């Protein structure tokens, strides 16, 4: 009996001695929430894997919730070295086959968090194209990108919504190399979208709301 359920490391609470959880304010999340607040029965996709906090936050707001753990899929196919292993055509193809497999125009909102920053061209563009395809016209994508070019590696996190403005970043794996993004590169990445809005943060993240 064959299963499509991936193996690998899934979101776990921080082990003793590992990086602690981080609580941070998020203007991007606040904006994303305000877009949801004015409507009813929207369909939201969370790419951080299912968590009680996020399910409760979205469903209590009267919306439907879907989940996919894109970082778990990366761990399954790229293992300990995302940057190196995604250069393999077969591994990249296997990752894409399992990623964002929902039908087109399925979601009004997508919480992509910081997953995209661990992908490199051409896999990055292919994943973004798929992400835009499954977002309905007028729908929104919340994404985070590394904004400090001196930072070469970033820990993997799971994102838990504490409230409409507050996130808890829970460490989930060994640090991985990240791409460095500036505003222009992000705009180019989402050039087929209707709009891209940036939010400045005090730490090294660039928060982005993309409207399809």
């Amino acid at each position: 009996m064959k299963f499509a359920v991936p193996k690998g490391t899934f979101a776990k609470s921080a082990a003793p001695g590992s990086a602690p959880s981080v609580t941070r304010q998020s203007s991007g999340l606040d904006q994303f929430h305000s877009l949801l607040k004015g409507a009813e029965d929207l369909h939201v996709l969370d790419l951080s894997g299912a968590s009680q906090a996020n399910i409760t936050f979205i469903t209590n707001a009267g919306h439907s919730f879907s989940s996919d753990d894109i970082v778990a899929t990366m761990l399954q196919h790229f293992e300990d070295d995302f940057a190196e292993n995604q250069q393999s055509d077969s591994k990249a193809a296997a990752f894409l086959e399992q990623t964002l497999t929902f039908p087109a125009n399925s979601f009004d909102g997508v919480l992509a968090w910081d997953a995209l920053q661990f992908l490199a061209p051409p896999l990055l563009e292919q994943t973004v194209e798929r992400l835009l395809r499954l977002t309905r016209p007028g729908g929104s994508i919340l994404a985070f990108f590394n904004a400090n070019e001196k930072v070469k590696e970033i820990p993997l996190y799971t994102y838990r919504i504490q409230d409409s403005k507050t996130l808890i970043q829970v460490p989930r794996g060994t640090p991985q190399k990240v791409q460095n993004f500036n505003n222009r590169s992000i705009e180019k990445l989402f050039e087929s979208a209707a709009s891209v809005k940036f939010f400045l943060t005090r730490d090294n993240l660039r928060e982005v709301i993309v409207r399809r």
Partner: protein
Amino acid sequence: MSSPSRTFEPEPLTPSRSGGSAALGKNVTVKGQIFAREDLTIDGEVEGTVECHEHRLTIGPNARVQAGLKAREIIIQGSIQGNVDATDKIDIKKEAKLVGDIKTSRIVIEDGAYFKGSIDISKPQARAQAQQATPAAAPAAAAATTQAGTPSR
């Protein structure tokens, strides 16, 4: 003086009010449909469908299930590929892996659990109204069938 005789009669058997429970062990493989009228624990391999209306279904840590599941309450510790429908509650433990859609009134999910799919939280009142609306179509359909099948004289 003789001691009084004592007789002991066994108490009459009464049906269990709490209901029993059944289990499929980790070395059991089932392909097909499972219907249970009591609580059921599955720790083996199942392919098909599992229905435990008004009862609890537990998918054990060794279970590998490729099936649609329906029960009053569903506890998931193993691997499932299929849709899950619990009228009351779904409890997904940290070691669980679920690929499929969920329909329930309440959901509890532990950190570490893997889930890919959608969640439909429908309150019990909404479910009851939906179920009441469905049978209304059946008598009309039955009447149409009767009219079509009635021989002319």
